[in-house]
């Protein structure tokens, strides 16, 4: 019996020893109804080692009590993942870690300010007359101040110790040194007042200084942390746009599955009012889609079969089925989030000066504090020691390297986030800085200023002069080919081409139900046109340069016809058969609605606008005139665009090139700022410094304006941060005392220091309200 009892006790003890029960709250994502609560609770409770689990739908959290020896955070994650939910650890959910740190900081600030206030009540002239006797006792003040110094201010000591071990210093070192000097002096005065009296030093402690300075600086940090949270709101908003589930059609059945499980090729149904889960192409149905959250475009976009849809946008009216083409990290939203995050992690060149100053700042402030102490001690008024001590402490406390460190990155973070809300994706802080200096913008014509969907407007048959007469014709009795003949041969040839104009011709042939012929020896001649053998004849289709190259004459009447078409802003393609010009095809690409306003906005802000195109000068000028552009670079071969951009740069201007990012990549890279119009759902364009999701020309001037406003805020911040230190450190050292008798109190210094960082961040946050 005794043995049994002992065994049972042993077991109990072992069990108690092995149990490492912890209760933790995790963020739980993916819940969309109250029933999810039960599903998650059940899943978590089934994990061996979990003793209790409570899920809160409103706060999207799960509070789990579990034995750390028997299960891990990963086991908990796996348990809910099976049902399509995501349990986030603190690392995955940094907000939770930050929240805990802030809660602790808040407690410390409250205790610090409370105790500091009691010490001030018991020691500050005038108000101490109304204080209870106990608060006037130095030993009571010592007790209260010690709590502030070593509990509230413990983090300053921890950082100071680690930093000094590495022979580096930051602001915490200054605070620890300053407050320790005040506290140490006060302790000595409390215990050995007679020693100080013998030295002609008033034995008055400065416990109030040490306690209030620590508390105010921590209060500043609390305010700073709150303000800083606002700088990363853009990313949180973007992440929050993601859909949680998708209604996938598999095996004839529609099932709601977590977004993570959607695969490329899945057919997804989207009903009115629902979020489109991932990127794809509509295969059935039509609707209007609100894409404002991703592209910044406020008007819903009509979508029908074969149109692309973007994940995270909202289906407004109809129901449709679409095929997923991009999932996970490949979706447009994921790319946008990545680009914004990367830009926020980059450094602006303007930050270099602040970086250099920051690296020397703290040790130099320490040296100034030493000089201040020595100066006041030797040549200052009596009592020399307290003056010397207090001024040196004030110098240490008032110095604020943080404001310099925060001046640029906080503004960049808000600026880049703000730009993303307008559908302007800025690659990095350097691009943001460069945009404000742009003085000339070169626009590529096709697909940038124009819609990039050219249409055949005219087919002009010309009199056949040569053996092309032998061609298969609708009506061989007349001296020209018919429009359909021209279209048939031209479309047959263009079928193999990827040029935007080719698409217009083949589309026209399709509309007229023309069956195409076989093409042999197809060849594309960059910047000129194409050639091939159709129906046994050598056929060329291209611009004047192609005919010059092939030494084919253009008859006078054809010349006149070409000029008329070109003056109408149309691109004319010359069509030859066996070295004879037999027809003309005119193609027009309409200007984007935003082109004129976009150009106007740029010109208003003093930016020169230039259009670059492969079109001949007449067509180019006609289109440029319509867009309000005065300077045109026409007949530029694709490979020469880069050189033309450099030529504009040689004119002394900082140049931005706006193109589609694919054909213009070298020109975009050559420009000071490459701006690409996003194509479809691909926004991560390598050659571009800025990608415009909206394809709206107005976005170019918006990007420049936003850059200017961001840079203005950065300059204000830097001016404030530098000015603050340059002016207030000498004031703290007592430079005004000989002239005006002004000395700064260390308590005021700590308040100024605390507000200095907060004011820089608040100034950066102003950018959130900016309209461009």
């Amino acid at each position, binding site marked *: 019996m005794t043995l049994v009892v002992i065994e049972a006790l042993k077991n109990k003890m072992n069990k108690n020893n092995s149990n490492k029960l912890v209760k933790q709250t995790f963020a739980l994502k993916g819940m969309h109804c109250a029933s999810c609560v039960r599903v998650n609770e059940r899943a978590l409770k089934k994990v061996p080692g979990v003793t209790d689990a409570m899920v809160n739908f409103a706060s999207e959290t799960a509070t789990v009590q579990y034995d750390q020896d028997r299960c891990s955070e990963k086991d908990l994650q796996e348990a809910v993942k099976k049902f399509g939910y995501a349990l986030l650890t*603190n*690392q995955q959910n*940094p907000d*939770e*870690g*930050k929240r*805990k*740190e802030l809660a602790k900081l808040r407690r410390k600030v409250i205790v610090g300010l409370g105790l500091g206030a009691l010490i001030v009540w018991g020691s500050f002239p005038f108000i101490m007359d109304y204080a209870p006797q106990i608060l006037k006792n130095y030993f009571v003040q010592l007790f209260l101040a010690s709590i502030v110094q070593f509990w509230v201010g413990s*983090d*300053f000591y*921890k*950082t*100071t*110790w*680690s*930093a*000094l*071990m*590495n*022979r*580096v*210093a*930051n*602001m*915490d070192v200054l605070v620890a040194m300053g407050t320790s000097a005040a506290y140490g002096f006060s302790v000595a005065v409390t215990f050995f007042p007679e020693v100080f009296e013998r030295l002609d030093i008033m034995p008055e402690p400065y416990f109030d200084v040490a306690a209030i300075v620590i508390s105010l600086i921590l209060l500043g*940090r609390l305010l*700073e*942390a709150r303000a800083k949270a606002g700088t990363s709101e853009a990313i949180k908003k973007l992440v929050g746009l993601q859909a949680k589930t998708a209604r996938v059609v598999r095996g004839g059945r529609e099932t709601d599955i977590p977004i993570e499980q959607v695969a490329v090729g899945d057919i997804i149904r989207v009903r009115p009012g629902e979020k489109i889960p991932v990127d794809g192409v509509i295969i059935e149905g039509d609707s209007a889609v609100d894409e404002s959250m991703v592209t910044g475009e406020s008007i819903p976009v009509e979508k029908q079969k074969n149109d692309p849809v973007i994940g995270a946008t909202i289906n407004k009216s109809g129901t449709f089925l679409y095929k997923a083409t991009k999932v996970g990290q490949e979706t447009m939203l994921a790319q946008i989030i990545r680009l914004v*995050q*990367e*830009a*926020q*992690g*980059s*450094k602006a060149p303007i*930050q270099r000066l*602040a*970086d250099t100053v*920051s*690296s*020397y700042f*703290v*040790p130099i402030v*320490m*040296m100034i504090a*030493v*000089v201040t*102490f*020595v100066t006041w*001690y*030797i040549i200052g008024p009596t009592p020399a020691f307290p003056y010397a001590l207090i001024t040196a402490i004030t110098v240490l406390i008032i110095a604020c*390297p*943080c404001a*310099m*460190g*925060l001046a640029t*990155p906080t503004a960049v973070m808000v600026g880049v986030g703000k730009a993303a809300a307008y559908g302007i994706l800025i690659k*990095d802080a350097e691009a943001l800085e460069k945009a404000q200096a742009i003085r000339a913008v070169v626009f590529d014509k096709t697909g940038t200023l124009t819609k990039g969907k050219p249409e055949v407007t005219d087919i002009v048959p010309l009199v056949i002069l040569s053996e092309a007469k032998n061609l298969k014709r609708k009506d061989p009795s007349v001296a020209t080919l018919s429009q359909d003949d021209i279209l048939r041969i031209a479309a047959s040839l263009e079928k193999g081409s990827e040029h935007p104009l080719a698409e217009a011709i083949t589309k026209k042939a399709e509309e007229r139900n023309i069956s195409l012929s076989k093409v042999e020896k197809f060849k594309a001649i960059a910047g000129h046109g194409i050639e091939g053998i159709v129906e046994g004849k050598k056929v060329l289709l291209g611009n004047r340069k192609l005919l010059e190259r092939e030494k084919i004459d253009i008859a006078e009447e054809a010349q006149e016809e070409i000029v008329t078409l070109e003056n109408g802003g149309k691109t004319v393609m010359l069509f030859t058969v066996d070295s004879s010009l037999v027809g003309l095809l005119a193609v027009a690409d309409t200007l984007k609605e935003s082109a004129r306003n976009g150009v106007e906005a740029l010109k208003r802000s003093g930016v020169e606008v230039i259009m670059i195109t492969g079109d001949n000068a007449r067509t180019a000028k006609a289109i440029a005139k319509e867009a309000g552009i005065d300077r045109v670079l026409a007949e530029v071969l694709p490979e020469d665009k880069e050189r033309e951009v450099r030529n504009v740069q040689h004119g002394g201007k900082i140049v931005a090139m706006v193109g589609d990012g694919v054909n213009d990549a070298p020109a975009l890279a050559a420009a000071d700022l490459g701006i690409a119009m996003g194509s479809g759902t691909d926004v991560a364009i390598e050659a571009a410094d800025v990608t415009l999701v909206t394809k709206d020309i107005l976005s170019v001037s918006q990007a420049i304006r936003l850059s200017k406003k961001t840079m203005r805020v950065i300059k204000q911040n830097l001016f404030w941060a530098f000015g603050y230190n340059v002016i207030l450190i000498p004031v703290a050292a007592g430079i005004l005392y000989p002239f005006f008798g002004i000395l700064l109190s260390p308590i005021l210094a700590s308040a100024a220091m605390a507000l200095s960082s907060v004011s820089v961040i608040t100034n950066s946050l102003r950018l959130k309200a900016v309209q461009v």
Partner: protein
Amino acid sequence: MDFADLIVLLSGIGGIGFISWFFFGKKAASNAVEAGNAITIQVSGGYTPATIQLQKGKKTAISFHRTDPSSCLEEVIIADFKIRKFLPLNERVDIELNPNKTGTFQFSCGMNMFHGKIIVK
């Protein structure tokens, strides 16, 4: 100038000399630590190790472990790789780097007070 003044003056000069030597003087060269596939950097009053060596074209997981409560160190910035990460206290935050160029790249805290180096060879 009495004796006490002289002592204070000499102590002040000595103090400035010490500060200058301590912070700006030649520090024991911190040897670059070979990162291999993964490395942990302790974040406490700076970065330990402060210099790590990576191989060009090789994926390396860098785990930042912040144990220092200072808000100065709550973010790490590796600007050349466009990385800015919040480091929750007493948590590990993994960053994967796959450098495609050689050279020396700085990383720092959010306020640019503490620094480290990544050498890519």
